[in-house]
């Protein structure tokens, strides 16, 4: 059909334009030039010979991976009449809600700035720069006075905003009717039901082997684990991004996980990338930002207090401080409903040539932000690689967990999915919790916003994040949250207050993620 052809050519044009700016393009060009020396490249059939050369040497695979990466990450080209805001978020009332939430955050940051009389950004004097460079690998030993700083917002503040989200065109009557949502989220987004989830997560079914279940000590490894590891090694040898993504849906062996995630996220550690990280490090040393103190405070409050992650405190500073200086992150605001905060150089208010984004990457960290990085420290030990992986995970997934949008993986949809699953499949539990004033979302929200980091044991968390990468969606977080409630349903039916319900669900560190998910999706009798 003509429509599909023109859509396809639009997609191709968009991908080509994006890839032309990447280092892969210049590498391919260099390889093509170098290949002209080879005897098998003939002038008459130059195009085909070079294409054949790329296929044999693995460059075509790299290009394939890059194209697959683009298709996964970026939304399809929008309708030509649609303005750029429409690509960020199609629903007008959600854009407005995100705008007013951002305004609140900016006001909070500005008031912190004026109250404490600390500038938003400050150029470090040479002595301080030298000192920081010496201490770069042990910033955790620094004990600055952070008592006056407070986090800009915490997940529970964000939850209140989501609870008050309303569609002005929706019948929000006061009296209870079939149209009222019994949970906290009151917007009618489309969420999947269990039949659709079963189809979507078909690789998690009871008849398919999983790491996290079929690799336990009671199961002989010949049944599943050995074969799975062998396939994983083959996938890595082929360097195929799409195959790796399909493979980790059944879990990734611990030894292969770091490389598989690198392949799926299409990270290549070229010298340019290491240089880029060093440049960010220089930026950190030159300028001191108010946001740095917020990062320090967050790490001290969350990761440093965690039994699993306190050893990685120094890595967290090295990654997060550089992350704030990285302007390439600004690119993701094209498809993120949020917008980066703007400011002007002092004395040049209103002049567009002196407009800058603050922080340079446009992302203001909130309480618990450092927990997105902490689990990755188990996999990657080299700071520049760790940094690249975290940045890619953020611009693909984590940004959706703290911005208001109608995307199926956005936090609003995840909350609604969680509440709908609980209401449909555990109606007694839902009703009981609601009656005692313990709306289930109030307990599970913090798990989902942090992608369960800091709540599950690390090996279980990494198995969960395997599936996030494999399915390219965060919906599994909502399903796991509902599965946890289903698991502790008997205890929860006996509680009589929100505090008691929180106590029942306080400790998730002993839970095994994959059996819970499998039982909830495929073995619950409804």
């Amino acid at each position, binding site marked *: *059909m*003509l*429509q599909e052809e023109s859509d396809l050519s639009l997609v191709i044009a968009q991908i080509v*334009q*994006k890839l*032309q*700016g*990447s280092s892969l393009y210049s590498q391919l060009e260099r390889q093509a030039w170098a290949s002209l020396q080879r005897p098998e490249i003939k002038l008459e059939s130059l195009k085909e010979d070079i294409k054949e050369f790329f296929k044999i040497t693995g460059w075509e695979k790299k290009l394939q991976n890059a194209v697959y990466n683009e298709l996964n990450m970026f939304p399809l080209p*929008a*309708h*030509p*009449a*649609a303005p750029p805001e429409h690509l960020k978020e*199609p*629903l*007008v009332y959600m854009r407005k809600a995100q705008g007013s939430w951002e*305004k609140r955050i*900016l*006001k909070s*940051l*500005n008031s912190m*700035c*004026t109250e404490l009389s600390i*500038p*938003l*950004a*400050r*150029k470090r004097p040479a002595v301080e720069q030298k000192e920081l460079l010496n201490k770069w690998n042990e910033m955790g030993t620094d004990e600055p006075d952070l008592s006056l700083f407070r986090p800009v917002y915490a997940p529970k503040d964000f939850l209140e905003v989501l609870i008050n989200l309303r*569609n*002005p*065109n*929706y*019948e929000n009557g006061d009296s209870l009717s079939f*149209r009222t949502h019994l949970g906290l989220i009151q*917007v*009618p*987004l*489309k969420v999947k039901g269990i039949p659709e989830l079963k189809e979507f997560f078909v690789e998690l079914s009871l008849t398919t082997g999983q790491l996290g279940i079929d690799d336990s000590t009671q199961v002989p490894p010949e049944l599943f684990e050995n074969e799975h590891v062998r396939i994983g090694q083959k996938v890595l040898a082929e360097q195929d991004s799409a195959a790796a993504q399909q493979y980790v849906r059944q879990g990734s062996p611990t030894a292969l996980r770091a490389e598989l995630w690198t392949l799926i996220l299409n990270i290549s550690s070229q010298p340019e990338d290491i240089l*880029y990280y060093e440049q960010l490090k220089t*930026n950190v040393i030159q*300028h001191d930002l108010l946001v740095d103190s917020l990062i320090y405070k967050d790490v001290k409050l969350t990761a440093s207090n965690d039994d699993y992650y306190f050893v990685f405190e120094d890595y967290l500073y090295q990654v997060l401080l550089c992350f704030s*200086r990285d*302007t*390439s992150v*600004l*690119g993701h605001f094209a498809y993120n409903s949020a917008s980066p*905060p*703007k*400011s*002007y*150089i*002092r004395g040049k*208010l209103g002049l567009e*040539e*002196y407009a*800058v*984004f*603050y922080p*340079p990457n446009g992302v203001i960290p909130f309480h618990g932000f450092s927990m997105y990085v902490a689990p990755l420290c188990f996999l990657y030990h080299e700071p520049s690689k760790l940094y690249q992986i975290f940045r890619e995970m953020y611009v693909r997934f984590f940004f959706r967990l703290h911005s208001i949008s*109608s995307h199926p993986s956005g936090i609003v949809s995840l909350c609604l999915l969680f509440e709908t699953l609980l209401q449909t499949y555990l109606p007694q539990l839902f009703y009981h919790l609601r009656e005692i004033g313990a709306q289930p979302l109030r307990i599970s929200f913090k798990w989902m916003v942090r992608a369960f980091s800091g709540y599950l044991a690390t090996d279980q968390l990494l198995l969960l994040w395997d599936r996030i990468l494999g399915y390219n969606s965060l919906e599994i977080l909502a399903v796991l949250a509902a599965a946890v409630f289903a698991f502790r349903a008997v205890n929860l039916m006996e509680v009589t207050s929100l505090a008691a319900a929180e106590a029942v669900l306080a400790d998730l560190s002993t839970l095994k993620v994959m059996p819970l998910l499998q039982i909830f999706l495929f073995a619950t009798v409804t």
Partner: protein
Amino acid sequence: MSRVSVPCHVKGTVALQVGDVRTSQGRPGVLVIDVTFPSVAPFELQEIMFKNYYTAFLSIRVRQHTSAHTPAEWVTCLRDYCLMPDPHSEEGAQEYVSLTKSQMLCDMASVTELRLILRQPSPLWLSFTVEELQIYQQGPKSPSMTFPKWLSHPVPFEQPAPLLEGLPDPSKISSEVQQMWALTEIVRASHTSTRIGRFDVDGCYDLNLLSYT
């Protein structure tokens, strides 16, 4: 292919409802929008574009110009086109939609009037409509520009002005300038969207407070 927007007059929406609009409890589920083209002759419709606002299904009827004395009849050209896969949820509720003539059931050769029938069966929404409606017809096949007289009828014989002493040949200069211009055009065309990575302005990052706009 080029297309030209056709100025249209969109009449107000008319709700179709059984019973008295004022006294009945429910909201109308069917709206009709008439589109006329007062200043344009019957044209061939190329594309209809609009922004949806919570309409679930769209039907379009068209009245075409007939040469004979028979009165023009309404013909359905699009039947129950689904804009929202689930009328109770937000999917597709505020999307931009394009309908081309290849999707229409009948020939759209000489359109005089259009009637859009909007349906929204779900009682959850307070109102529904389509916005920013634009109709396009086929643009002219080739640009019909008229050349200035001196270009289409050049002077047959012209002596070049005598070269001044010591100055380079003007035709050589003009060919070099043309090559430079071609190079700049190539550079401009291959513009990449990668950023440079600087977040400060000339080394300075001393900021005011954050702006709210």
